[in-house]
């Protein structure tokens, strides 16, 4: 992506210099800066080394998987352990000498892959047929140990990927809510935060999102639709993602954590929008809700009360984080769009709390309210993306707008006439809102346009 940008920039810069927008020295500095960021030869070396490692690792896997019958167990063990020792030994030697650092890091990744191959092959040689996710867990721990003791981002990324595989096997294969993922994920997080590894941080956030999706699916599989448990479940996850989003906002106010704040917010926002999208479906609001549900939970099963307590605790957490953030940013200026966002979010939270008690026969009305708030929220996201020049917000806003629009169009819950009214009223509101915003924008930027008649050089 960056290389394409660099090429385009290189073709554009002479024209900018000719026009006097950029000085020749400035153009050279820009070219050097972009070339440096796009990687150049260093990137190629790293890419080749990692691809080589992956090929070599795959070769070792398939070679030993042939159950090498000509060799005795001792020889096989010797080869497996010897390969591991040579690999880590060479990497350590290169790192200690400060030579061929990229190759050394690729060898560390190979070491992690070889350790996994060894776990599988020792299990094969000695016919160890245990609880199979444990093999992946052991492999992941091997990767974590490597990443903790040596500065290897690729080893940590591999370990996090293995943790996802492990939690997927445990939760989807054995139908268990798999909380053991969290402490190991936290171990990885502590390391990458200390090393400021940005790519690994993205992978860790993706891992958290996947784990939460597995957890939601696992609990959802055990919850019957008719008693409204799914509504509580989705709301619990919505509040949890909202709490994560607020954590991202709090990170922004702490210098040491600021670098990862935007990443946390973006992943949390994505998950939040997915959960809120689920809440726009009327079916979710048709079950037993309110005190009727609470009473049936008390007398029916302990699970219902557990869900209620989780939702209440998460609401309290969201409030606490909001107040904490407000306290830390009291002196900061608050642009109008932020206040609008707070009003929208606050209203959505109130609707979420109310919907826990207003479903059942009012379920259809609750779903309409969710849809209206959802559309309004997406329009707000696009508007904020425009103001803040944040392409991610614009893309995500339009993406979910299209998704929810298509969903409502093909939704068979409401009659065609109801949907028709919904779209028409929504369209009129959007057109009116757009007209109002455009008028406001023109009024606001009119003086500043006059003060910038041309470009800068």
């Amino acid at each position, binding site marked *: 992506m960056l290389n394409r940008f660099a090429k385009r920039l290189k073709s554009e810069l002479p024209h900018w210099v000719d026009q006097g927008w950029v000085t020749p020295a400035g153009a050279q500095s820009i070219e050097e800066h972009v070339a440096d960021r796009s990687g150049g030869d260093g990137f190629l070396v790293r890419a080749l080394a990692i691809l080589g490692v992956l090929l070599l690792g795959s070769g070792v896997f398939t070679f030993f998987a*042939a159950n090498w019958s000509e060799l005795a167990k001792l020889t096989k063990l010797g080869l497996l352990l010897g390969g591991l020792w040579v690999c880590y030994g060479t*990497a350590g030697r290169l790192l200690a000498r400060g030579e061929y650092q990229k190759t050394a890091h690729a060898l560390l990744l190979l070491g992690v892959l070889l350790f996994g191959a060894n776990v599988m092959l020792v299990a*094969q040689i000695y*016919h160890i047929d245990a609880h199979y996710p444990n093999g992946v867990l*052991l492999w992941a721990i091997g990767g974590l140990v490597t990443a903790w003791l040596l500065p290897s981002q690729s080893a940590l990324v591999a370990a996090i990927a293995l943790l996802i595989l492990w939690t997927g096997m445990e939760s989807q294969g054995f*139908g268990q809510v798999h909380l053991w993922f969290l402490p190991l994920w936290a171990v990885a997080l502590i390391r990458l935060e200390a090393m400021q590894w940005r790519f690994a941080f993205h992978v860790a956030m993706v891992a958290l999102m996947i784990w939460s999706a597995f957890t939601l699916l696992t609990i959802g599989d055990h919850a019957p639709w008719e008693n409204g448990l799914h509504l509580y479940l989705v709301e619990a996850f919505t509040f949890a993602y909202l709490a994560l989003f607020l954590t991202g906002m709090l990170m922004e106010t702490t210098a040491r954590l600021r670098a990862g704040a935007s990443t946390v917010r973006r992943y949390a926002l994505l998950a939040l929008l997915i959960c809120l999208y689920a809440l726009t479906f009327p079916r979710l609001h048709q079950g037993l809700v309110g005190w009727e549900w609470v009473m049936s939970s008390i007398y029916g099963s302990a699970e219902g009360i557990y869900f209620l307590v989780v939702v209440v605790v998460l609401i309290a957490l969201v409030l606490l984080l909001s107040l904490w953030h407000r306290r830390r940013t009291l002196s900061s200026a608050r642009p109008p769009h932020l206040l609008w966002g707070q009003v929208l979010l606050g209203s959505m939270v109130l609707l979420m709390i109310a919907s826990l008690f207003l479903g059942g026969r009012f379920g259809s009305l609750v779903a309409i309210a969710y849809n209206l708030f959802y559309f309004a929220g997406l329009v707000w996201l696009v508007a904020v993306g425009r103001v803040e020049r944040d392409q991610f917000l614009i893309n995500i806003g339009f993406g979910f707008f299209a998704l929810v629009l298509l969903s409502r169009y093909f939704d068979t819950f409401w009659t065609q006439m109801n949907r028709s009214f919904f779209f028409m009223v929504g369209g009129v509101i959007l057109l009116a809102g757009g007209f109002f915003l455009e008028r406001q924008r023109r009024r606001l930027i009119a003086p500043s346009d006059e003060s910038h008649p041309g470009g800068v050089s």
Partner: protein
Amino acid sequence: MTLRIGTILLLQTAALLVMVAMKQWTLSSGTPILLETQPVDPRSLFRGDYVRLNYAISQLSADQLGGDDDFSKHDPIFVQLQQVDLYWQPVSIHHQWPSSPGGGVVIKGEVRYARGNIAVRYGIENYFVPEGEGRALERPRAEERVDILVAVDRFGGAGIKGVLVNGELRYQEKLL
């Protein structure tokens, strides 16, 4: 740097050796028992280069056995076995280690599913054979009988000690 690399190597090597040692401990200290195999599909008992084994004790009927009977998927299960003639047969099934195992052995497993019968996995269902030999044994003749010699340790852990074809030891597990 040397210390860190050494620590990684030590920990990872130790993990691998512990895997071997634990299995070897079961094989050397466990009580040897002979289990009757029941192939799911007799045409493919030996698939490729590993053997998929289904034992007579892999399907249990709670009605005909003592102990507990309310098992769910993925529950741990302790099966008490007694020797009847040549083979070891299930006597009772339990959620926890039975208080009086008597003269038999207790093998630990995991419930695969419980619909009428209880399907159990003991971790001895796969046996890898050298490349090529699995295919040679893929279609055992009608008169051939395959039995598995299993060692069960005092915690209920099991390991395959050997494969017998018509009562003769065809494969035997060794440490090295």
